[in-house]
């Protein structure tokens, strides 16, 4: 066992009931675990199940504790460590507002094209780009926009799913 800090993406299937998010977030704050990102939405209307995707980091022992503690919450159905369980895809979406005129404005549009970001709102002095991809791709894009008039970023946090036919 190492003391290396590892980044893990964990998917948690929970009953969609009042307070469930507070339970999960309270667990992380109460026990001093990190949340790099957290997303949640209902994924099964008939059974009222929500899926929470948490990106967290810690030593292997802490990651194991996080999973065990999550599983212990009564409304939690399943906990999957996507990072441990084989190949998976992870995506995040960001809305990025860039304000500027002239060359900077044109340059931002050029870079957006390279990143396959789409323009979802525009004025003569601003763009809102929508970009989907890995966290790294989003970070890179945002860094490039910084000198070109970046004013605001809204990110969803990661959602993730295992590759292949297997069902969660």
């Amino acid at each position, binding site marked *: *066992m190492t003391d290396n800090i590892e980044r893990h993406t964990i998917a948690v299937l929970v009953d969609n009931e*009042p307070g469930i998010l507070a339970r999960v977030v309270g667990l992380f704050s109460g026990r001093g675990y990190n949340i790099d990102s957290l997303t949640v939405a209902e994924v099964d209307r008939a059974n009222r199940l929500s899926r929470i995707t948490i990106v967290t980091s810690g030593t292997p022992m802490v990651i194991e504790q996080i999973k065990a503690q999550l599983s212990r919450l*009564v409304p939690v159905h399943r906990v999957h460590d996507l990072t441990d369980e084989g190949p998976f895809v992870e995506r995040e979406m960001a809305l990025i507002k860039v304000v500027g005129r002239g060359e900077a404005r044109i340059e931002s549009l050029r870079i957006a094209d390279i990143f396959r970001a789409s323009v979802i709102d525009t004025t003569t002095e601003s763009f809102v780009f929508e970009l989907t991809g890995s966290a790294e791709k989003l970070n890179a894009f945002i860094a490039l926009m910084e000198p070109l008039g970046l004013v605001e970023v809204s990110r969803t946090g990661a959602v993730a799913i295992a590759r292949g036919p297997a069902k969660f």
Partner: protein
Amino acid sequence: MSAEPICGADIVIRALVDQGVDVVFGYPGGAVLPIYDSLFKQNALRHILVRQEGGAVHAAEGYARSTGRVGVVLVTSGPGATNAVTGLTDALMDSVPIVCLTGQVPTHLIGNDAFQEADTTGITRPCTKHNYLVKDVADLARVLHEAFYVAKSGRPGPVVVDLPKDVLFAAGPYSGPEQAQHKSYRPQLHPDPARVAEAAALIVAARKPLFYGGGGLVNSGPEACARFTELVRTVDAPCTLTLMGLGAFPASDPHFLGMVGMHGLYESNMAMHGCDLLIAVGSRFDDRVTGRLNAFSPGSKKIHIDIDPSSINKNVRVDVPLLGDCAAVLGALLGECKTAPRPEGAARQAWWKEIDAWRARDCLRYDRARRDLIKPQYALERLYALTRDRDPFITTEVGQHQMWAAQFYKFDKPYHWMTSGGLGTMGYGLPAAMGVQVAHPGALVIDIAGEASILMNIQEMSTIAQYRLPVKAFILNNQYMGMVRQWQELLHGGRYSESYTAALPDFVKLAEAFGAKGMRVERPDELDDAIRAMIETPGAVVLDVAVDQTENCFPMIPSGAAHNEMLLGPADKAEQPVSEEGMVLV
């Protein structure tokens, strides 16, 4: 399904009765008046009116831990619920099955800062195993049954059901407890057989094994304790128990080394340090047990039996985790170990020799020769000698007296020892004793108390009087918060900041004011008669025992130290001063 809809309050009563509840500990208020009205109209449920809601939860804990059943609490909204928080946290830390019903303002007022509104589910979320807010009377019966299922299955714990007042008035359908499982919560009860075989092989082959049982063993029940006892005897290994586990293995059996941990016995801690195989059963490697983690049981392989996956590998890496209910796992292990070939016993003999040498240190010795004042240890030795054949139930408060009680009172069966372990809640013992006495009306129930702790819930003397509960409070009165004084002596240069109680009540008069018998002893030669009088008095008694004010509790593993760095007595100075890391530990 009941044909006729009934009101929410009646649903509550019916659900409790159908769950086999015979007694509820509670305190009324505006938000729960409908339930009190329904209580008034029936005879199946008994209500014990406490004097403060905190007392209700501890009483329910005492009831639960002395019977193995779920303890039930009923309190009103706002202050009723917040007063219950300490008890709920206590029950969470010690895994006690409790269902606590809290009143709430009507649903349309929730969030409005209404009179006596508190965000009860928000406040109790981190201090319960689970909680519910019932907003629709149609869900009420199911939620109540589910609450009992959650409280008692897997690792037990407290569950809060918050009940808005309009839901208690509304009419709704009743359904029985038949399908009262949670839709997804299913703790794993039976271990992986391959792991069992692996563990059994390690146990029979070990040269220096040690069993280390905890509260989970008691929670699993008498069956688990009996199997544990049989297993220890079958493989002829030494066994230690945590504070919470006392009684899970007979203290009178020579395989028992005594309690382990910060104030555990020398032989237990040394065996833990020196064993080559540690078999943890329903114990959780708590910091009070392990001492300094990087020096904890350095040469051993570790097997860990527990029903809670989050207890495994939390503090200490184990080699063979066995997830499941203690009774099931021990049953499987016992089967494997009985049929396994016995290795030659020479190594085991050597291990017992080593242990005998540690035992010979007589780590609990104290100055028995004192004739002028009562040593607290002497008081407990006499209490044990004079009450042991009455099969008493013992509760404690928190402090030195608690540790001495754990060291000197011997338990041969589970469910007879109730103490606040994980949270260390002063004020636990008296209400807990009350709850035990309600469950066992004819039994001898003694709260071994400190004079500071007992004052934290002394109002429950009034409940004890109302229900004529013959609870005995045995106060080891040293006029100090002794455990605080001991730490100040060890860590803060003997500056006894605020640990002396300058204006203690006259406990004899105090007892009398509450309709109990009060007695005080100051000399060792009066002690036996006083204890006998206490037992023989039919009603409640407070026996105020004036003990040596300066005595400290040994053995002790100072904070941040390892098991083989115990202090055995006042003459033992720690080899090194307590480390900086140790200083910050609680």
